[in-house]
């Protein structure tokens, strides 16, 4: 044994390892019963390797319903906190089963250890989880979603106010930050949007051509691709690309700022975080959506025209003429409006999720996921609204 007062931790470690690595040394637990009193005697090593045996022995003894259990640890000369936790667990089991359980032969070192903790607190019966009715559980599920929707709505209204009303009240829009954000979102998304646009144009033209060939109506490839890309696919795809790239980035950025108390600091300095941080992002995203969508449309139509020329024997001039007939200024205008709305949604959802982060880095991760999922969902909902409105107005 190493010198007191700490024989367990301060002894040469190789000696300890020998004791611990020999499974026979620690695990010997003997159980004897005499006149209704069960005595559980531990071996010399009350360490990690011996704990399972001890706890098993005690819980087995408890099943025989003895009047009293005595845990004799007099033989112990080597213990660690896992071993002592085993003792505490045994006491807790005894207490839970209503059987009197006593410890015998505690050494001074063990008493020193127990002087740092309260066995009473550690063995106290814990209240089980509160039973919850179905309504409560439903509410617990639904409430965060509703709250999240409310936050998005409020922030959206705030942004609209900031964009439409503030300039009339003499507050300058933050052009510098907006252009910076625009460069970040639109510039960064340009290559991927262009690539997707070109490939999608090719694919759509091919699909349309396969169908239309059956009626010898190959020329209408231009109509199909032009209309579908400009009115639906262009705005949708750009918005989804922006949701994946920028909604997540905004949520992560603002979320980390919330965790780091940066947003509170802004508020405290008299700077409105919505006008300082959110509005430039939302405006930049709305404009970026329009710009990217225009590029997407152009590239997709080029892709389709190339396919038509290469495989369907439709010349560029014929393709262009069909396009001119099929697409009106009205289509372009609605597409532009749609893009503005989609971009705004992506911006607002991402920022709202970021600003409502709670719970540290994990909260940031959750907010980022939600930002992407909710913005894609919102894009589709807004698209449905647009189509319905369009039908009502123009039909």
């Amino acid at each position: 044994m190493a010198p007191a007062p700490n024989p367990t931790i301060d002894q040469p470690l190789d000696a300890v390892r020998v004791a611990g690595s020999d499974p026979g040394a620690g695990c010997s637990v003997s159980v004897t019963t005499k006149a209704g009193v069960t005595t559980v005697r531990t071996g010399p090593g009350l360490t990690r390797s011996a704990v399972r045996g001890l706890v098993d022995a005690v819980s087995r003894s408890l099943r025989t319903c003895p009047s009293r259990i005595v845990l004799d640890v007099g033989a112990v000369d080597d213990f660690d906190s896992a071993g002592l936790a085993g003792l505490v667990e045994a006491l807790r089991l005894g207490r839970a089963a209503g059987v009197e359980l006593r410890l015998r032969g505690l050494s001074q070192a063990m008493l020193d250890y127990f002087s740092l903790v309260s066995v009473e607190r550690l063995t106290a019966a814990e209240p089980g989880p509160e039973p919850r009715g179905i309504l409560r559980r439903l509410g617990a599920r639904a409430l965060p979603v509703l709250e999240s929707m409310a936050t998005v709505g409020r922030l959206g209204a705030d942004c609209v106010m900031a964009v439409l009303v503030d300039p009339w009240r003499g507050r300058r829009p933050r052009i510098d930050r907006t252009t910076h954000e625009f460069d970040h979102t639109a510039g960064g998304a340009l290559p991927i949007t262009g690539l997707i646009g070109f490939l999608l144009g090719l694919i759509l033209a091919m699909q349309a051509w396969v169908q239309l060939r059956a009626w010898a109506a190959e020329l209408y490839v231009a109509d199909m691709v032009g209309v579908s890309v400009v009115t639906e696919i262009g705005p949708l795809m750009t918005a989804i690309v922006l949701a994946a790239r920028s909604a997540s980035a905004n949520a992560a950025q603002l979320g980390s700022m919330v965790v780091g108390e940066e947003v509170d600091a802004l508020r405290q300095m008299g700077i409105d975080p919505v006008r300082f941080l959110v509005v430039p992002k939302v405006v930049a995203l709305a404009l970026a959506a329009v710009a990217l969508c225009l590029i997407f449309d152009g590239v997709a139509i080029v892709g389709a025209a190339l396919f038509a020329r290469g495989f369907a024997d439709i010349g560029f001039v014929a393709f262009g003429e069909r396009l001119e007939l099929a697409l009106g200024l009205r289509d372009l205008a609605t597409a532009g409006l749609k893009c503005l709305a989609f971009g705004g949604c992506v911006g607002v959802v991402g920022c709202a999720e970021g600003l409502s982060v709670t719970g540290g880095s994990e909260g940031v991760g959750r907010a980022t996921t939600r930002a992407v999922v909710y913005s894609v969902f919102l894009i589709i909902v807004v698209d449905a609204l647009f189509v319905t409105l369009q039908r009502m107005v123009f039909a």
Partner: protein
Amino acid sequence: MSRAGWGDAAQLAALQELQAEGLTLDARGSDDLIRAVAVTTVFGERTVLDGIDLAIRRGEVFVLMGPSGCGKTTMLRHLCGLRAPTFGTVSIGGRDIHALPAAELHALRLRTGMAFQGGALLGSLTVEENVALPLRENAGRQLPREVIRQVARAKLDMVGLLPAAERMPADLSGGMCKRAAIARAIALDPEIVFLDEPTAGLDPITAAGIDNLIVKLNAVFGITMVVVTHDLPSAYAIADRMAVFFDGQVAAFGTKDQVLEAGDPRIRDFVDRRMRDAERPEIDVARHMIL
């Protein structure tokens, strides 16, 4: 304390190798458990630590003290093996820890604990799960779940955090985070515990509680404590010996009295909370202009 059977055969083999060589944490024939020789660290152009020699004895509370930015936290990261110095060596129990093979370094880490400055608790786990984590991952196959839980709860009780066991780290105050980090650092019954600024930013009463805890853990378990702090009262309360860092060098080394007797004017200023003339903001110009 048994440290065998960490579950991994490679670890066990590494241990047996260590054992066969007769090398243990208590370096034979010397009181020094941790020894740093000529530790020098360069970040880019800046020399953060400049030839530090330290010897920390088994079972003592050793304090690394000094003003902010003097390199003491960097030194701690070298001592605990998280970061290798640019030059120089750090040895624990006579072995250069930055040259250890991975399995042996892992074995060493299981015998040391570290409490980081901000707590570094995992945000996705409750406080209790945070404390149980090292045990669950390193001895999970050996120990029943309830026992792991009891160990974690006992360690939390030692730092007075048992009532907060089920809470998430994000809901804790700064002092509670630090205490939870200490509980996690001692989860594996380590022989050496490294503490980075355990009392910084805490009120005097909570700070005194943590000082008390450090002293108690040292006294009862004989854990060697290496504490980084710039909190003078705390350093005086807990240190057996200390090293005072200034500009990447050790300005004084020894017991509290020895450090004060060393007579370094910078230490005097540090102790008296006095700003040095060179660092005082220049106001002469303004005075000149007023007159």
